Each structure stands twice: as C-alpha cells, then as structure tokens.
C-alpha cells in the first residue's frame, strides 16, 4: 500500500475540485520575476475566458514590478507543466483543457527583472 500503516489506509484528499465551490485552482508564474517569490495560486470558474485572466487579474497580481508596464501579453511565451503551450485568449479554461491544479508559466522575452537579476 501507498503508506506504511498498521492497517489498510486511505488518506482523505483535501484539495479535490469539489471543495472549491465551483472554482478550480490555477497556478501562474512569471519567469525571471522572482520579486513574486513563487507562482501565484488563483481560483477561477471553468468558464472564465483566458483573456480576462490576462487583462483583469494578472495586472493586479504583477503590476508592482517596473517591468510590467513593458509587458506585451500577446508576445508572451507560455508553458504548461513546463512544456510549451499556446493559449487562445478567446477560449475558456474548460475549452482550453485546463484542469484543476494545472500550473502555467509565462516568459516575457527581453524582460529579466531588476538589473537583469531575475528579480
């Protein structure tokens, strides 16, 4: 069994999607900008348009960084589970096949943080 125990044992999963009131977890990190120390954890409804995330949510999360005003999201390169991935800004999370607890990263070429430090 998948844990050493006195008797058969099944752990209670604490983070299945049913516990998030109709939302799903999505993690988004901005490479080379570790001022935001870790990728962010968001909850979104599955029918949320990906473009709305980029236009309405990410500025609030990343806007403090001086690089943000130079960001052109249309040129950003995306990774999902660290593999290349191309989002369609008009589609929803569900339509894009984004599952609960998927992890996305975006790279903004040429922008490498404060004095190129990756921060």
């Amino acid at each position: 069994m998948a844990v050493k125990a006195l008797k058969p044992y099944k752990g209670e999963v604490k983070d299945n999607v049913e516990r998030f009131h109709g939302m799903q977890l999505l993690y988004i990190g901005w490479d080379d900008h570790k001022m935001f120390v870790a990728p962010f954890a968001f909850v979104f409804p599955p029918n949320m348009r990906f473009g709305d995330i980029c236009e309405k949510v990410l500025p609030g999360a990343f806007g403090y960084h001086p690089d943000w005003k130079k960001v052109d999201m249309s040129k950003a390169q995306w990774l999902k589970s660290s593999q290349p991935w191309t989002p369609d800004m008009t589609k929803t999370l569900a339509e894009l096949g984004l599952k609960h607890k998927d992890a996305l990263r975006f790279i903004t070429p040429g922008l490498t943080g404060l004095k190129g430090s990756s921060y």
Partner: protein
Amino acid sequence: MDVQAKKKLGLKEKYAHMTRGLDWETTYQPMDKVFPYAKFEGIKVHDWDQWQDPFRLTMDAYWKYQAEKERKLYAILDAYAQNNGHLGVTDARYVNALKLFLTGVSPLEYMAHRGFAHVGRAFPGAGPRIACQMQSLDEIRHVQTQVHAASNYNKFYNGLHQFRHQHDRVWYLSVPKSFFDDAFTAGPFEYMIAIGFAFEYVLTNLLFVPFMSGAAYNGDMSTVTFGFSAQSDEARHMTLGLECIKFMLEQDPDNLPIVQRWIDKWFWRGYRVLTLVAMMMDYMLPKRVMSWKEAWEIYAEQNGGALFNDLARYGVRPPKGFAAACGDKDYLSHQAWSVFYSYGAAAPFHTWTPSPEENDWLSAKYPSSFDKYYRPLWEFYAEQQKQGNRFYNKTLPMLCQTCQIPMFFTEPGDPTRICYRESDYNGMKYHFCSDGCKEIFDNEPEKYVQAWLPVHQIYQGHCFKEGTDPTAPGFDPLKAVLDWYNLDFGRDNLDYEGSEDQKNFAAWRGMATRNE
C-alpha cells in the same frame, strides 16, 4: 577487623543493575499485542539487550541535574526580567528573530513531548523506553522554559501573544507543524530517525547554535540561558538518536534500505524547515554571528561529513539531498527573506530592508551571489519604501504539497529559475518545490494527499471567523484571514519602520538613561 569499605559499584554496573532485568516477556497477552507498533515498519530487532545507553542516567541523577539546571535557569530569567534586560538588546528588530523562534519552534517541543511519550511506550526494549521517556520530560521542560522566556518579551513587544492559536492556522507555521505531524504519525522507528537522528543529531546545531549565538551577540541573555540549558538536554537527545540508528543497523542488514530511505526523507524535510534559520541569521540579527553559508559549512558539511563517514561502516550513505542543499547555500537565506518581506502583511512579526552597511556585509559573505541577484532587489525596495510605496504582496502563493513552503526554491544549479516538479496521483496533480519533496510524496502519497495547505484552505473558505460574510460589500478576504489568525493588524505585522515595537523600544531606552 576488616575496616575496608566496600567498593561502590562503577557507573556502568550500577546502571545495569538499576535498569536491566526488570522487564519481562508478557504471557497474559502476547508481546505483539502489548507492543503493537513494534513490527509494522519492517524493522527487525533480534536482541533488545544490545541497546547501549551512552549517558547512563538513572532517575535519581536525572532529577538531580535537571533540578539544578532549572534553578539556575529561572534565577537568570527572573534577574533578566527584574533588570529590564530586554532593553539591552542591540535593537528591537532582534526581537523578531525571537518571535520567529518562539512561535515556530515552541509548539514543536510540545509535539516532541507527546511523540517521545508515545515511542517511550511503544518500544519493546527497556533501554530505549527509559531514554525516550526522559526525552519526553525534557521536551515539555523546553516548552515551559520557552514560554517563560516569551512571557517576559510578550509584556513589551507585539506578535508573541497567539502562538498556540497561530500554530494551527498561519501559512508559514504549517511548515514546522506539518513536519512534526508527519513524524508523529509515523511508526516508532521512523519517528526516532526523523526526530532523534535527523533533526536532533544531523540538523540540531543548525537550529540551536545560530539562534542562541544570535541571542548572545544581540544582548538577549534570557534566550541564551534557556537555549544553552535546553541544549544540554539536547546532548542526551543527540546521543539517543545516534544510538538508535546504530542499533537498527547493527540488528539486521535488512534494516539498512528502510533506514536509508528515512535518512533521505528526514534530512530533506528538516533542511526545508531550517529555511527559517537561514534567513534569521543573515537578515534578522542586528549583530550577526556568521552567515548561513558559514554555519552550513561548519555544521552540515564538516560535522555532517564526519558523522556520515562514521556511519559508512554500516553501508549508510549521506542523504540524497545533501549535495542540493550544499548547492543552495549561497541563495537560500536571501530567497527566504524576500518571501517574508513581500508577504510582510501576513506574518505576526516585522520585516525590513537591510541597510546599506548590511548589504555590504551580505556582499562580503556571499561574493558570488549577493550583488548579482539580491542587492538590486533590496535597493529597489528601499527606494520604494522611501516613496511610501512599500511592497506588500496580496496574492496567494503556490505551495509545495510536501513541505508546504511557497514554491520559491530554484532549480539546482540555477538560482534564476523557480524549480517546478509535479506528480499525478489518482487523477489529480500535486506540485513540489524540489526532487526531494516530490520523492517523499511519491513514496507515500496517501499521507500527503491529506495535507492541510493554508492557501487552498483559504480558497475553500475555511479560514474566516465564525459568522464572517464573504458576500458583504467591501469584504477584504486577506484582512478576514488575518483576523482569523488573531493577528493584530498594524501592530503585529508590516514593516519594522514605524512599528509600535520600534517606537516603544526607543522611548523606553530613552527613559532608562534620562530624567524627565
């Protein structure tokens, strides 16, 4: 007439008479029922009498020396309190290192007390039972001495008043909490490797010596006293841990792979918890003792090296993650401080940017990394703060499923890239900060799918006070969570500059040397 006095029993003989041959094999109930936890982990023990007690303490000696230590300790704590000793610290930023220690570590001492009480019942051998029961008493002593030390500071400084409540709730305190819950819910042999060996032998000097030396360097006699007094108990704990691992390895060669896997797991989990110590040493002590990197080189590389050379005779190799931990020594403290600095609204202690002189010290201690990666950040923050634009990150971070720390750790060998690892288990994704944490999950996923991850729990709506209405206009979820933490907003948290602690300390120091 023969007036020659009978020779006293030597230490070893006396101990053997007082502690051996007093137990028995049960017959009313089978031994396996009396000791139900002794075999399920797969550790084979053929002869419990082979157990060697390095410190041969009988109960009379235990009480005598502990009582003496207690008397000395409380005399010093009383004198410190009577003398307003807290005003002798370098400056009140130091108190935040103490807040970190007292809120993060004291609850673990209590759990250690319970854990050792449990294994002190669970082992079939009388020798380890006695040693574990003494350790259980030591650990509750540690909680008590720490609470006494905290009590004095709590009269004057913010952030110390809710450590018990916050242990179960606050995001970064789930890190030490989950560490101990993991050990506490393991079997007795794993518990001994986790706590007795990995935490209290391999890693203990990296926790205690920096905090206690930090206290000594910064005028905090109270902490020095309880620290050194506790450490003398730790010397016994260390030897217990070392004896446990030697005993397991000597009893049966089949035990080696099990023990090695535990060494790998618990070195990594313990190392992750020590992240807090790294940042404390480099950023939170106004008068610094040495850098985290230097402490790591002495206590982990040299000392740990000697230890694992010694254990090599059993076929034990150094922990799997050791090289990665060594590789991180130039980066860890800086990365960690940037987490607490940016999430400074959400923790019940203060944070601040290092001064120019402190940046220069960091630069000298970290010539290959500080100026390139971290100085730009601190200088930027200092500039922003001058303009009234101090950064407080309000968006929740992604956490590692195993260590529960925000995923700020970087790829081995590349401090510019966040390290992302994941596993799929029973149709769901789990994320990890490192190969070490991923491997721990993959070996026992049923344990870690249950993790109470603070960020996820907040999103599930479990982190608000009873009666909170999230739909009310102007609802601020972060403020509501901090309220649930019993964190006193504006007093316990935010930057040290402008804090009540800072103002009070200056005022009281002034009062001690001026006539009004």
